[in-house]
């Protein structure tokens, strides 16, 4: 629904965004470390802290792992799902802003590529598509790995269609891997 709205609003064209702040965000940084890395690091730390060091985090993991058992324990599962969607939306919004900063415009056609890649990255990192298991470090590693792969393909000149067909198998492989143990949780943004 949101992607439909986006297409409607932009008429399918890229909307250029001229913002000094965003440009500074994309190009600047502290020393050799660009802002983007810092933002990603802080986001990862916050999510890791909430998921694995707070009560709400445990309840989120429980709701994702076994919703009936969680409900039976008195955990407010509807509220937990709300938090999960809220958190996901928040970080997606953040990622969106960073993306606009990086590309200098809002491109509605980027959404399909990134959607699949982001799910692939999280699953590669050990989180479960069915909920109950999550790993912040895993998702971060998966994201870096996948992005390096895509960048590598671009560098050596492989076309984007082959590119997509190569990252697709990564999406289907992990669910077939049994018992890849990590810590637990619900899906990251």
């Amino acid at each position: 629904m949101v992607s439909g709205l986006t297409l409607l609003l932009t008429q399918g064209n890229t909307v250029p965004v001229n913002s000094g702040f965003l440009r500074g965000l994309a190009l600047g940084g502290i020393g050799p470390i660009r802002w983007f890395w810092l933002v990603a690091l802080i986001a990862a730390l916050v999510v890791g802290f909430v998921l694995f060091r707070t009560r709400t985090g445990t309840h989120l993991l429980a709701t994702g792992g076994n919703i009936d058992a969680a409900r039976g324990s008195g955990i407010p599962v509807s509220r937990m799902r709300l938090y999960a969607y809220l958190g996901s939306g928040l970080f997606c919004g953040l990622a969106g802003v960073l993306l606009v900063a990086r590309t200098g415009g809002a491109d509605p056609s980027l959404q399909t590529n990134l959607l699949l890649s982001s799910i692939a990255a999280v699953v590669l990192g050990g989180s479960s598509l069915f909920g109950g298991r999550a790993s912040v470090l895993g998702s971060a590693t998966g994201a870096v790995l996948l992005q390096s792969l895509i960048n590598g393909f671009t560098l050596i000149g492989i076309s984007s269609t082959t590119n997509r067909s190569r990252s697709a198998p990564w999406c289907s492989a992990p669910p077939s891997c049994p018992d890849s143990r990590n810590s637990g949780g619900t899906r990251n943004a």
Partner: protein
Amino acid sequence: MPEVAARHTDPGADQVPRGAVLLEVRDVHKSFDAVRALQGVDLTIHKGQVTALLGDNGAGKSTLVRCLTGVHPPDSGEILFAGAPLRLNSPDDARRRGIETVYQELGLIEDLQVWQNLFLNRELTYGIPPVKVLDKKRMISRSQQILQELDVNVPNVRTTVRRMSGGQRQSIAIARAANWGTTLVIMDEPTAALGVRETAAVEALIGRLRESGVTVLLVSHDMAQVMRVADSAWVLRRGRAAAHRRIDATSGDELVGLITGAIAGDIDA
């Protein structure tokens, strides 16, 4: 939601001496549209004893258990808990009175560790709200203590439940209920899916619970188990408590007869 970190003891229930009546169900009726699940159940549960609840499918055992655990209130009749009327509006109310249940599905989260499951929704935290950090160290050591007290064979509380055997999972679920269920622990077919050795281990655990004064309501189809583990048995038939027998004054065959109706119960005149 109120902090449920401490063990809830019901002061009324604590006053009841061991062996005396803890829970009394009086003429309880419960219907679901056209189905009359409970048609006037009268039974009593004594403190510190293992009471078995028997009955064929459809006799009303699950419905009665749900009334006792706050899932739904009875349509009519009374439930007296330590002499006072018990009015439960939700499972949380039951938990707050120290009534815990071990369901057949166990209610464990597989990808969480043993200590996380033991403290599920009762996590110990430190810090100032809204930032409350989990007190992992305390929870882990307390979990080790709980399992040690009940002699449960779980070598490391930091392993996930997924890696535990059926008997271990069952023991963890029972240990959790026994730890927080200071007044009444209800078990629904606790060894239904277990092998012989694991069943023996769980039955030994139930015995240790009884020794430490925990009141247990055991719903079971296994007559031999009931004869081994329980102190007395109530037989439900078609929504009524057909009979009550002390285990040392009955046999497995008599209980089966009472369940099926082959033997006339106390209420059949």
